[in-house]
């Protein structure tokens, strides 16, 4: 699967996603500027992305832990997600995310 990621400068990157890995891990390993300070424990809100292009609605809903952690994210919008909580899968091939401001 592929992840279409827009960075903070507006540049679009196509990142290969591995089944079972999180979108955060894929963005981080591709060298995109995502802090992910807690390493994927849903504990820091620094892997915040906006899910666009109609993909937000296709994701399984946020867990309570993610909803709570988003309270510590900046510039939260309706389509905000923590990318450590999105797992790569074939049905998400082409998912579009924009890295939130820091």
């Amino acid at each position, binding site marked *: 699967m592929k992840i279409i990621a827009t960075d903070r400068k507006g540049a679009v990157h196509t990142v290969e996603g591995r089944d079972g890995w999180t979108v955060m891990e894929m963005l981080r390993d591709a060298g995109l500027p995502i*802090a992910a*300070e*807690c390493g994927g*424990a849903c*504990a*820091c*809100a*620094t892997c915040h992305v906006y899910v666009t292009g109609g993909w937000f609605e296709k994701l399984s809903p946020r867990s309570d832990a993610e*909803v*709570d*952690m988003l*309270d*510590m*994210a*900046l*510039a*939260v919008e309706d389509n905000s997600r923590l990318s450590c909580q999105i797992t790569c899968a074939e049905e998400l091939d082409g998912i579009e995310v924009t890295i939130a*401001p*820091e």
Partner: protein
Amino acid sequence: MALETDVAIIGAGPIGLFAVFELGLLDLKAHLVDILDRPGGQCTELYPEKPIYDIPGLPIVTGQELTDRLLEQVKPFNPTFHFSQMASGLSKLADGRWKLTTDAGTEIIAPVVVIAAGGGSFVPKRPPIAGIEGYEGTSVHYAVRKMDAFRGKNILIAGGGDSALDWTINLAPIASKLTLVHHRDGFRAAQHSVNQMRALAAHGKINFEIASVKALHGNDGQLHAVTLAGADKREWEHACDTFIPFFGLTIKLGPIADFGLNLTENLIGVDTQKFESTTPGIFAIGDINTYAGKLKLILSGFHEAALMSQAAFHICRPNEKLRFQYTTSSSNLQKKLGVA
């Protein structure tokens, strides 16, 4: 007056703590500086309750438990902690030792400095609102140090965590007006605080708005109003003179960047024999260092602490011979640990 010791450690996370142990076995004393108000670094700040599975010999341990165990382990060596202080300056003295200063004015003089600062300092998250820097310190604050400074102010607090709720409750009686804004009608905070805040709102003591701050308006650092946007994207202006955003902490390298060390992408390059930077006497261990094959694992930091300590001994005790000993068999080490 400056404090003198063998080793000044920046960072009281797991690696800084274990360094105290390894240094202690060699009779080297340590002072630790940390910007947080308690030991543990990321382990206690970011994931106190999350299990860690790759600490040798501890199949499962939480960040808090690991910190507690390390504190128990270093207890015989009685390190001195300087919490809630940011290591802000490093200079070399004429006698070859280093002087580490903090933003609280503490000065620590030591032949060896160990940087175990992880990703840097935990600092408040700054909302990405245009021009916010220009209001910081005058109208925009990320913490409440003296409550009296907020007396009579028209305060806007943003956030949905414990800090946002606690300060809404505490500042309400002294503010001329207080408004809390949060992007949803739910909170990541203690339920009794949420209940208290809702009671204050119900009695008209504070206002609570489901909204986000989009823009700041004012001049010369003095805030007059902000633009708020509601859940329905409708925007309106809200008059206020003080804005306190509470979105938790994030990690920034901070003043270490200005210590004159050889940095590569915010990491300190070290050798893998002593984990010393290219500046003699300055060591870097744990997540903050880099070398060929580096893995950012707690267990790697422990190893680095052990090797760093051997090298630190030779700097601190140039005329003494270092004898390698095992804690299992050395009565000398066991005495230091208080078990023999």
